């Protein structure tokens, strides 16, 4: 149910949840039913983002995107997505 994922992402932005840290709301442009990240383990997401940033993990676009954030910012983005409903 792609629609449900989208709504879940939407709900995650509500005032009941903390507002997304800078950059986090852009992710769902690509990450929904395909390549989902909502509700995933924060540590796994952080490690992936850090590895994309350093180039240790190969990618097509994620390396280019992760380089736009400091590690602390990537941590915050990963933590927020891990709390977002699946």
């Amino acid at each position: 149910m792609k629609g449900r994922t989208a709504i879940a992402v939407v709900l995650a932005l509500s005032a009941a949840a903390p507002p997304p840290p800078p950059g986090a709301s852009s992710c769902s442009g690509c990450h929904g039913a395909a390549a989902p990240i909502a509700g995933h383990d924060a540590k796994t997401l952080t490690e992936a983002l850090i590895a994309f940033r350093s180039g240790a993990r190969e990618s097509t676009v994620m390396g280019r995107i992760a380089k736009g954030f400091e590690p602390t910012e990537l941590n915050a983005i990963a933590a927020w997505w891990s709390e977002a409903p699946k």
Partner: protein
Amino acid sequence: MIRRRHILSGGLALPFVAKAQATPRVVIVGGGFGGATAARFLRTAVPAPDVVLIEPNDMFVACPFSNLVIAGERGLDAQRFGYAVALSGGIKLVTAAATSVDASARTVKVSDGAQYAYDRLILSPGIDISWGALPGYDEAAAARLPHAWKAGEQTMLLRRQLEEMSDGGTVVMSVPPNPFRCPPGPYERASLIAWYLKNHKPKSKLLVLDAKDVFSKQKLFQNAWKQLYPGLLEWVSLSDGGKVVRVDPTTKTFETEFGSHKADVGTVVPPQSAGAIAAQAGVADRSGWCPIDPVTFESRLVPGIHVIGDAAIAGAMPKSAFAANAQAKVCAQAVATLLHGNKPAEPRLINTCYSLATPNYGFSIAGVYKPVNGVLTDIEGAGGTSPLDAPDSQRVAEARYGERWFQTITSEVFG
């Protein structure tokens, strides 16, 4: 908080305040990637504002991937999206054209005469074509030389013309100076028309007449053209006399400063500006586009009106569907925060954009942006294009990622 501001801001706002409506009202004009996203995200703020989405069409027809429709590789139905999910989210959908904005009364009037009051207005009107800006190219000319830069009937018209052309024909395309919707779009279109010709009408030619010397993903496109379409696709830069100064729709002739080219099929990527409602509302500057604050997307010219998507002057961010969607989420968050009387945090925004050189040959450009001195600016060291020397497997993978991006973003926006 909001009501007090209205009272302080002058008597004109009072009739609407007098309704004693506690729930703030946000009106959104335009149901594309920007406006429909903003509507859905605003409805989930707590407490949610009342959201009115004003859009003249029953169905949205998406531009990304419409070049595949022109090439005969995709049906137009795959580009159409309805608003049923938006409505189920409690958004009031008004199927009418917004005709005027009264920024002091804070109302929007639509084509049937109804008026909608707002505390904050989000304009996401996309583009309108600047008819006549290219001499000879008016609305009637588009029936002979389709622009197909708003997806729909125009897309199918260009498709039919290509189908009807005999093998050995000449296709001519005109590309305008910056800025315009979808910077790599003309070159993807050229690629996919060339793909169609190569496979179905191989004696034909495609001539791309450009008012620029440099363009988005240029090296990637030019490498692909050299490899895939030698002798078929010819790109003429500004320096080489590519700038089209006049078209004659009757004879399908494209005039440059140096000569003229007669087409069997012609397509004009038209000069354009922010959708007409932007200028009417007073948020467009002399360039025809809308200067904004990069934290809130509030207009630099008219308070209380936010502008997102192709219509906005978003600094380094391109006029893309991904950018409109990303801007809409940041803008929705900022509007909700402002309606609560708080100060929005400084955002980061991302853009990712895929292009095709064939249906199985894709590449991308990405960017990460932050406000610097009031302008959305590329974060250094981030972003950029796919590598020039990538193996074929990466081109295939990026073609598939592009399709997945389209599925994901359209389900986020339209359900």
